[in-house]
């Protein structure tokens, strides 16, 4: 059975008791009902949390860009303007919902939802901590890649349905960019899968440790290059600058969502910001050790030994530490994404395709081969463990 939030919670005695009590009251086996309720609550928490992070992402974007450009940024609504995103949301909901007369109505309405569904479906396998993951599928990362490609369909249909030149060009650019950059990103993911020996998020993170030298980022030189390839490709897949050609303000007004107004535009923006979080989370899980914390604090074993805590309490503390580790790393990458956006100028279309096909894809394939050779030659050991062994041998000589 795959580990999920339910299997984690069912370790606790209270839940087992509650299930037994419910079974007695209802007169049937209530374990699947309880599992369903837990899943529903967990899904609500994840969706709510991610929507808040998406909303705060717009605030962070404006505030950080303001910092980089020596401006003040939003500072009126709430302390430091932090409630600005709520005000924006209210404004968007209250706005008039306009559908252009020449638009393809069915597709026009569907497109933002496709984007949002694609992003929210990927959240099912994002590993927040070892206990708090909605479903640790055997094909986790593969499923994530497949679901994320639904965003490309949404972007394209949004551009097509608007019946506007700007939207059309933006949609075409967006779709072609997303398909192209999926290739280096996926090949890089495969090279990490090669190191871990499995597609599920649990296996991918389980092969790493809490300390930086145990991360796959520093496992070998090829994985180190692979991180940057993946990060660039992820920037392009989420249509972020310097790859924001689909929504280039100066040439395409705002690309595929030019004709969208009100909450339909809001859904596009929300999907984009949540997708940035998801790809940063994937980069964290694949390269930066995911939710792992040093000294095995995550399992809580050390707390039970040293402090004599209750086992479940120690585990819960471990989970909170793991959540903290995951969110710290992911939000740090999120900051880098915003920082890059306000630092680099936008690429041209031909430069974009050249970068993808002539540089990133060959480098990604080279990395894949390099990782395979490394696993074969050094028996799957990381560069730090090799150096450590070599120094102990040398020290033994003297």
């Amino acid at each position, binding site marked *: *059975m*795959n580990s999920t939030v339910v299997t984690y919670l069912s370790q606790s005695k209270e839940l087992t008791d509650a299930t037994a009590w419910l079974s007695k009251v209802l007169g049937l086996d209530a374990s*699947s009902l309880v599992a369903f309720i837990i899943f529903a609550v967990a899904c609500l928490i994840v969706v709510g949390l991610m929507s808040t992070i998406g909303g705060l992402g717009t605030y962070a974007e404006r505030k950080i860009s303001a910092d980089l450009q020596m401006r003040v940024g939003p500072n009126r609504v709430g302390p430091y303007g932090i409630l600005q995103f709520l005000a924006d949301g209210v404004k968007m909901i209250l706005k008039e919902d306009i559908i252009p007369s020449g638009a*393809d109505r*069915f*597709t026009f309405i*569907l497109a933002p939802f496709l984007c949002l569904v694609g992003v929210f479906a990927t959240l099912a396998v994002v590993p927040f901590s070892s206990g708090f993951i909605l479903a640790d*599928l*055997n*094909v986790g990362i*593969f*499923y994530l*890649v*497949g*679901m994320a*490609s*639904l965003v*490309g*369909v949404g972007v*394209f*249909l949004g551009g*097509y349905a608007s019946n506007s030149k700007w939207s059309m060009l933006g949609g*075409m650019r967006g*779709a*072609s960019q997303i*398909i192209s950059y*999926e290739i280096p990103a996926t090949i890089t993911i495969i090279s990490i899968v090669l190191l871990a020996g*499995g*597609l599920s998020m649990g296996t991918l993170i389980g092969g790493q440790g809490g300390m930086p030298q145990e991360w796959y980022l520093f496992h070998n030189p090829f994985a180190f290059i692979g991180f940057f390839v993946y990060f660039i490709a992820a920037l392009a897949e989420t249509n972020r600058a310097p790859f924001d050609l689909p929504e280039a303000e100066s040439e395409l007004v705002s690309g595929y969502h030019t004709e969208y107004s009100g909450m339909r535009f809001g859904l596009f923006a929300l999907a984009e910001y949540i997708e940035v979080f998801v790809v940063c989370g994937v980069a964290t899980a694949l390269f930066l050790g995911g939710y792992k914390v040093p000294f095995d604090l995550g399992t809580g074993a050390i707390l039970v030994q040293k402090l004599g805590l209750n086992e479940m309490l120690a585990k819960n503390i471990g989970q909170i530490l793991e959540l903290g580790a995951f969110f710290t790393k992911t939000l740090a990458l999120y900051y880098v994404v915003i920082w890059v956006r306000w630092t680099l100028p936008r690429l041209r279309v031909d430069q974009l395709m050249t970068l993808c096909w002539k540089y990133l894809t060959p480098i990604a394939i080279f990395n894949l081969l390099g990782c395979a050779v490394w696993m074969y030659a050094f028996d799957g050991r990381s560069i730090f463990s090799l150096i450590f062994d070599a120094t102990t041998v040398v020290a033994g000589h003297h």
Partner: protein
Amino acid sequence: MFTNTLFLLSAALTVGGAIAVVYSQNLMHACIYLLASFFGVAGLYACIGADFLAATQLVVYAGGVVILMLFAIMLTGGTGNNINRYGLEKIAAMGNKKTYFFAGITAILASLVVLKIIANVLKDQPSTLLTSNEPTVERIGTILATDHILAFEISSVLLLGALIGAAVISRPRKERHD
């Protein structure tokens, strides 16, 4: 219980999507319904415990094929009028009553023949609806890289040929100056 619900939902999505594809007047909409149908098929794969196949279905069809179809339809102007320049109704790509009739008869005949052929197999097989949740990825990988390595390599050569062919066709030809 859960598996049955999943199966019914996926089957409804598959069949409903397929019917909507056939009855849709607009090629672009048909393509979107096709996407729904593909998702239904992925759900069916998940029902029988073929997790890798389900994810592949999503990656290949939902991600790649549908976007390429949308591109092709948009660039060739597949949507639009059904009347040709002489004022006659074209036989639409989606078909009309005549094509539906013949296609229906052909489908029934063909399915009867196929059922007759596989009837023996179906009779002996017990139901295989999600017996276990064991991972299939490793087994598929091992089999692909050992027993079926020739088929695997040949299919990659086929893909390479398609790639080179596309590059040759789409490349601007150099004019000869003599």
